[in-house]
C-alpha cells in the first residue's frame, strides 16, 4: 500500500523554452528586415504589433499553465519575459523609425494597445497569485475571476474597451478646436467605460451567484468551512478586483491616448493650445461668487426703511396677502405679514439685481463679486480664470469693464450666451485668498445679466491631469463596487433573469436619481390638472423617498469633472468611499447576507 506520489505533473518548462526561442528568432528576423529596409513602411507597425502579441501569447500561456512552475520561478520568468518583450518592442521601434513608442499615430495605437494588454495580463496574474492564499473568501474571489476569464466575459469586455478607445480619437472631426476633441474623447471614452463596466458588474454579479445556486455548485462550496457572509464577501471581492483590472486597462488606454496622442496634435491657435493645457488637462477648482454685502443685510436695511417711512404700504401688502383673514387681524399683525412678504420679494429682487449690470451711467451699472478660498491659486499656475456668460440675443457682442482688488484691467469682450474666460494674474489674489472683482457695464443702452447657473465663476488650477484622472477612476471604481453588491443582493433571492432586471432598474435609477430629484423639486403639483393636493403630496413623497437616498450617487460626477478639467479632490474620493463604499455597500451587503443566511440553498427533490 505504498502511496508514494509519483510525479504526475508534466514539466512544461521545455515548452516555454521552445516558445521563447521561437519568439526570439521571430524578433531577430523582424529586426533585420526593418534594419535593412526590406520591410515596406506600411508593414512596419502591423509587424511590430504582431510581435507584441506573439510575446504576450507566450507569456499568457505561461500564466495559464502557471501551476506547473513554482511561484518564484514564475515571478522570475515573468519579469524576464516582460522586460524582454518591452525592450524588444522598444528597440524595434527606435530602429525602424528613430522615434519612441509614441511617435506617429499608428505607433501610438500600437504602443497604447500593447501597454494595455500588458497591464491586463500582469494585473490579472498578480491578482490570481495573491488570491492563492489559503483563506476561504479569497478562494471564492479567485473562482469568480477564473469564471469570468473562462467565460470570455472579461476578455470580451477587455477587447471591446480596447477597440473603442483607440478608434475614438480618429473618428473625431479634425476641423473643430482641439479642446473640444479632447473633451469629447474624454467624455465618450470614460462614459462608455463606466457604462459598460456598470452593465458588466451588475450582470456578472447576478450571474455568478444565481447560476451557482441554480447549478448547485454552491452545495459543494457551502459544506466546506466557509460562512455565508464570507462567501458573499468572496464573490464581491472577486468582482471588485475584476473591475479594478478592467478599469486600470481602460484608464491606461484613455490617459495614454489623451496625453501622448490627442494633446500632441496641433491646436488651431495659441488660445486653443492654452485651453487644452490649462483648462481641459488640468484639475481646477471652481469658485462661485458671493456679494460684498450679504443679501440679508441689504434686505434688512431696506425693510427697516420701509417700516419707518411707508408702514401703510406694508399693511396694504399684508392685507392683499390674506384678504379673508384680514378682517380679524389688527394693524400690527397685518404689518408683520406684509413685512414678511416684502422681505421675500426684496430678497429675490436683490439677488436678481446683483447678477445684472444696468446701462452705463445708471446707479446700478456696477456690481462687486467676491471670490474666496483662492489661497493656493498662485502655487500651481500663473493665472486664474474668470469664467463668464452673458444672457442676451445670441451673437451680439458687448464690453464689460473690470476692476480686480481695486486695480483696473483691460475691458472684457463678451459674446452673448457663450461661456468665455478671462485670465487674471494669480498674484492679484490677496493674502486672505480673496478676489474682489467689480464689473461695470460699458454699454450705455442695454443692461446685461449673468445667468445663475453658469454666469460667473473663478477657476484656478490646483493640480495636473494625471492624478485628477486617477482619483476620478477611483470614484468610478467605488461606485462599481457598490453596484457589485447590489447585483449580488438581488441574486441572493432571485433567479438570474429577474435579478438582472432588478439590478439594471436599480442601476438606471441611481444614474437618473439626480435628474429626477431636481425635477421633483421644481414640479408644482397644484398646477397639474386634475391632481388633488393630497395625491400630489403623496406622489412627491414617493418620488423623494425613492430618489433622495440615491441622489448622492449623482453628486459624484467623475466623468463630467474630468471633461471640464474640474478638480476631483481626495476629500471627494474619501467622501465617496465613506458613503458609497462603506455605508451603502455595507447596508446592501448586510441585507444580502440576512437574506442569504436564511435561505435554503437546496430545493424540493423528493
Amino acid at each position: 500500500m505504498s502511496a508514494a506520489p509519483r510525479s504526475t505533473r508534466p514539466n512544461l518548462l521545455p515548452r516555454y523554452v521552445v516558445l521563447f526561442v521561437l519568439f526570439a528568432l521571430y524578433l531577430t528576423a523582424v529586426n533585420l528586415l526593418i534594419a535593412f529596409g526590406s520591410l515596406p513602411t506600411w508593414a512596419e507597425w502591423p509587424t511590430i504589433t504582431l510581435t507584441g502579441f506573439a510575446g504576450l501569447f507566450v507569456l499568457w500561456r505561461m500564466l495559464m499553465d502557471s501551476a506547473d512552475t513554482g511561484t518564484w520561478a514564475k515571478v522570475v520568468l515573468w519579469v524576464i519575459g516582460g522586460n524582454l518583450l518591452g525592450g524588444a518592442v522598444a528597440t524595434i521601434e527606435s530602429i525602424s523609425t528613430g522615434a519612441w513608442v509614441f511617435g506617429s499615430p499608428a505607433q501610438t495605437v500600437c504602443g497604447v494597445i500593447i501597454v494595455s494588454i500588458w497591464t491586463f495580463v500582469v494585473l490579472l496574474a498578480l491578482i490570481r497569485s495573491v488570491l492563492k492564499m489559503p483563506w476561504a473568501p479569497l478562494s471564492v474571489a479567485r473562482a469568480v475571476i477564473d469564471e469570468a476569464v473562462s467565460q470570455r466575459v472579461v476578455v470580451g469586455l477587455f477587447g471591446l474597451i480596447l477597440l473603442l478607445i483607440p478608434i475614438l480619437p480618429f473618428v473625431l472631426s479634425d476641423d473643430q478646436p482641439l479642446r473640444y476633441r479632447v473633451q469629447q474623447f474624454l467624455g465618450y471614452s470614460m462614459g462608455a467605460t463606466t457604462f459598460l463596466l456598470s452593465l458588466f458588474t451588475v450582470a456578472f454579479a447576478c450571474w455568478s451567484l444565481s447560476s451557482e445556486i441554480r447549478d448547485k455548485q454552491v452545495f459543494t462550496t457551502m459544506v466546506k468551512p466557509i460562512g455565508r457572509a464570507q462567501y458573499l464577501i468572496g464573490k464581491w471581492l472577486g468582482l471588485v478586483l475584476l473591475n479594478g483590472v478592467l478599469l486600470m486597462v481602460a484608464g491606461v488606454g484613455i490617459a495614454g491616448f489623451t496625453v501622448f496622442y490627442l494633446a500632441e496634435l496641433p491646436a488651431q491657435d495659441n488660445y486653443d493650445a492654452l485651453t487644452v493645457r490649462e483648462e481641459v488637462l488640468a484639475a481646477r477648482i471652481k469658485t462661485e461668487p458671493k456679494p460684498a454685502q450679504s443679501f440679508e443685510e441689504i434686505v434688512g436695511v431696506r425693510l427697516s426703511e420701509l417700516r419707518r417711512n411707508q408702514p401703510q404700504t406694508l399693511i396694504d401688502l399684508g392685507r392683499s396677502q390674506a384678504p379673508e383673514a384680514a378682517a380679524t387681524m389688527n394693524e400690527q399683525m397685518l404689518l408683520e405679514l406684509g413685512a414678511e412678504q416684502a422681505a421675500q420679494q426684496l430678497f429675490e429682487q436683490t439677488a436678481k439685481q446683483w447678477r445684472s449690470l444696468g446701462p452705463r451711467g445708471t446707479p446700478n451699472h456696477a456690481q462687486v463679486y467676491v471670490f474666496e478660498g483662492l489661497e493656493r491659486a498662485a502655487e500651481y499656475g500663473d493665472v486664474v480664470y474668470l469664467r463668464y456668460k452673458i444672457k442676451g440675443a445670441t451673437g451680439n457682442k458687448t464690453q464689460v469693464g473690470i476692476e480686480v482688488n481695486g486695480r483696473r484691467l483691460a475691458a472684457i469682450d463678451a459674446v452673448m450666451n457663450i461661456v468665455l474666460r478671462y485670465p487674471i494674474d494669480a498674484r492679484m489674489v490677496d493674502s486672505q485668498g480673496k478676489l474682489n472683482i467689480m464689473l461695470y457695464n460699458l454699454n450705455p443702452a442695454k443692461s446685461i445679466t449673468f445667468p445663475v447657473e453658469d454666469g460667473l465663476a473663478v477657476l484656478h488650477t490646483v493640480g495636473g491631469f494625471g492624478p485628477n484622472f486617477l482619483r476620478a477612476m477611483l470614484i468610478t471604481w467605488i461606485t462599481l463596487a457598490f453596484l457589485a453588491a447590489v447585483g449580488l443582493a438581488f441574486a441572493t433571492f432571485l433567479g438570474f433573469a429577474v435579478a438582472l432586471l432588478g439590478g439594471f432598474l436599480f442601476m438606471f435609477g441611481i444614474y437618473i436619481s439626480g435628474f429626477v430629484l431636481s425635477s421633483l423639486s421644481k414640479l408644482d403639483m397644484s398646477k397639474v390638472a386634475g391632481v388633488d393636493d393630497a395625491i400630489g403630496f403623496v406622489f412627491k413623497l414617493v418620488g423623494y423617498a425613492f430618489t433622495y437616498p440615491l441622489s448622492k450617487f449623482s453628486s459624484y460626477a467623475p466623468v463630467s469633472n474630468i471633461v471640464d478639467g474640474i478638480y476631483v479632490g481626495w476629500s471627494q474620493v474619501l467622501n465617496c468611499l465613506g458613503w458609497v463604499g462603506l455605508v451603502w455597500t455595507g447596508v446592501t451587503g448586510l441585507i444580502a447576507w440576512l437574506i442569504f443566511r436564511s435561505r435554503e440553498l437546496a430545493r424540493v427533490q423528493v
Partner: protein
Amino acid sequence: MITPADPPAIETRGLTKVFKDFWMRPRVTAVDTLDLQVQPHEVFGLLGPNGSGKSTTIKIILGLLFPTKGRVAVLGKLPTDVAIKKRIGYLPEESYLYRFLNARETLDYYGRLFGLSHHERTRRIDMLLQMVGLDAVQRRPIGEYSKGMQRRIGLAQALINDPDLLILDEPTTGLDPIGTRQIKDLILELKDRGKTVLLSSHLLADVEDVCDRVTILYGGRKRAEGTCNELLTVSESSLIETDSLSESTINKIEQLIQSEEGKAIRSVQAPRQKLEALFLNIVHQAQNEGARTSGATSGGDVADFLVRDAHMPENLDGQALISQLTSNEPTQPAPTTQPNVAPAQPQGVDDAVLDQLTNTSPQTDQPADDAPPSTKPAKPDVDSGVIDDLLGGDRKS
C-alpha cells in the same frame, strides 16, 4: 469500534421536513419524524427507493436545508456551525463542480477553502488524483469529463480535508464497476481508520458490501434499522457449498437430511459467478494486454494521508493489526481502546495482510460463529484476489 463515550456522529430527533409552496401551504413531507443515530467509526447506510427522503436528510445534516421540526446534531454541533465543516467531507449525488476548472484547480480551490497550506495542498492533490485515477487528465476542464470521471473528482474533493465524517450521497451512480469496487474499498479503508461514513444509496449491493448498520427509508419514514446481518440472515434455511457433487452423492445427502431432520433438498445448482466479478475479470485481462483508454484509469492506492494516521505506531506488524481489528466487536467494546485510535495501514506492512484486512473488516461486526478469526476473506461472492490485483496492480507482482 463504537465506544459509548463518544457522542453520535450524527443524531436526529423527530426530524421532519415539509416542503411548502409559494403560499406556504405544505406540499410534500419529505422526511417524517425521523430518528437517526450514526455512531462514530461506523459505516451507516441510508437505504431507500428514489424519493424516499435520503438526499433531503443528508442536506439537512449539511445545513443546506433547514428542518421544519425536530433536532439535528452533527459531531455534537448544529449543522449551521461553520467550524464542524472542517471535519466533514461530502460527495453530492451529482457533480456540482466548476466546469471551467480542471481537476487540479478544483482540488486546489477546495483545499484553499479549508485553509490548507500550499505545500499540503500540493501533496494531497497529487495523491488524490492518483488515487481516483485522474492524474493523466488533470489538466482538462471538468466540463469535459464523463459522468464517472466527474464522480471520481467529486470523491477526491470530498476527501481533501481528510474528514472524520464522510457523507456520500449515492456515491456509485455513474461509476464503472471498478470505480464502484474502489469506492467500496475506500469506505472500508476509512472505516478501518476510525472514520464515520454515512452512505445513501438505492443500490442494495453497495450498501450490503460495506455498511455496518442500515436504515431503510420509505416516504420519509424509517421502515427498518439494524446491522446487515440482522436484516439479511434468513434463519429458516441453510446453504451448503462444496465442490461439484455427483448425482449419487446428492441423493445420499438427501437421504441423510430426510432421516435426520425429516426435510428435503429444495434445489441443487451450479453456483453462478456474479456479473461484477466477471466484469472485473475482463477488464483485468484487457489491462494486462496493455489496451489503451482515454478515459479514467482504474486508479491507484488510497491516498497516503487518508490511510496512515499520525498517531499510529509505525512498527505495528500485520498480526498485531489483525488481532486489533478482530477484537473490535460491537458486542464487546474494548475498554482500553482510545476512541480515536483507529487501526490503519502503517507503512511497511505486508501487502497481502493489508489486502485481507481490507476485505475482512466489514465482517468484524459479525458474530464469530464457528469460523476462526482467520485471515481468509469472508466474502464468497467476490474474487478478492482479482480486485486486489486490479486496484493495486503492483501489489502482487
